[in-house]
């Protein structure tokens, strides 16, 4: 993964905001993962078109007091890829 990579959500998963849980969740066959607020904000921006760099810029704009988010976002994206939530076009 580089800053120019374009992640998309693995078709095995569906991202949705759940009012009852007050968080984003990933739904998959017969199961659900609850995402913490920052993971939810990152996942919600993944659409198969934006690069990692664009996603980070958007998050910086929305959370101006958060400091540099680059490493945090990259770390999460790596974890998400390991969990197969995300795929990258090769």
């Amino acid at each position, binding site marked *: 993964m580089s800053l120019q990579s374009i992640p998309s959500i693995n078709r*095995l998963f*569906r991202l949705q905001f*759940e009012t009852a*849980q007050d968080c984003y*969740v990933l*739904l*998959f*066959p*017969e199961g*659900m993962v609850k995402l913490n607020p920052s993971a939810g904000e990152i996942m919600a921006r993944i659409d198969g078109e934006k690069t990692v760099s664009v996603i980070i810029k958007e998050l910086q704009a929305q959370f101006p007091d958060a400091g540099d988010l680059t490493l945090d976002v990259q770390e999460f994206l790596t974890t998400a890829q390991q969990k197969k939530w995300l795929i990258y076009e090769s």
Partner: protein
Amino acid sequence: MSLKQTKPVGPPFWLLAELTYDCPLHCPYCSNPTDLGDKADELSTTHWKEVLTQARAMGAVQLGFSGGEPLLRKDLEQLVEHGRELGFYTNLITSGIGLTAKRIAKLKKAGLDHIQISFQGADPEVNDAIAGRGKAYQQKFEMARQVKAQGYPMVLNFVISKQNITQIPQILALSTELDADYVELATAQYYGWAYHNRDHLLPTKEQLITAEAQVNHYRDQQDGKGPQFIFVTPDYYEDRPKACMNGWGSTFLTVTPDGSALPCHSAKLLPLTFPNIKDKALEDIWHKDFSFNRFRGDSWMKEPCSSCSEKEQDFGGCRCQAFMMTGDMDATDPVCSKSKDKHMINDAIQSASSPSNPLVYREAGRDIALFKL
């Protein structure tokens, strides 16, 4: 009853909609009740839509369409569409019989998220003998191909019993060939028809050890690719009972073809009166009905459960199993080595080594016909 504070009851995470008990297959491992009821009592489309709406409003997320064979309901697409619009993750749990490429496409358009297809074996001979229907394997195979071709996540479900446990290597290869995403290798659980046929289904401990080793060996060679295999061992060989349904009335809500609301799909065999969705709102049923509160918390427990340090892990095991085997629905699940009834499990294992009753195929509305596999 103790006045001890109990944990607040959350929403039912899972709604299992058993649309019909009709089924084109006759599997002896079926966990449907042996009294399959009257088709004339099946809920209408309007009733089902209302159930879905109410469950979603309570916070339910996963919706399973099951049965019997849910494809036999002509309104399945309508119900899928309604469920998906409400925001459910929609699962179709099917035998694959009655599926066509066209119907798979129609269901996709309606918003179906995932299809689970059951297989009874890894080749036509074994599969069709267990299913009690010719050409079933071929149909399942072709539909599994279609499900993947049309972009669905696909789960394959193999109910493992003495009848097919020697096929594990072929089952693993078949699942890979069909490019399944997840594969459930679920040893039969002994409810309904399966309880009746237990002697013919329960594998030996040696067979299980071999099967599990074959699965583990295959996993080691997968290198992160191919299907994810989930091997579920039967509780009869465990020392502690399963945490049945993740705790009574905690996570699962089943609605049966006639509208009965149950905390699990087998609960109707218990000597309790369960409410019907035609008479009461789902919210009232889930939170207030006597039957749903009957085994919540631990104040109903007897010894050895009530003083057991593990009671919050397994909730005393399965109420249906306790009742079927001991006649007391408050008893400790006999699977537990602390149960005074553990000998019943050991007797069942012993009895399975030389079945004395004939195998009975699931069949509705007729005298039970006897076959030999």
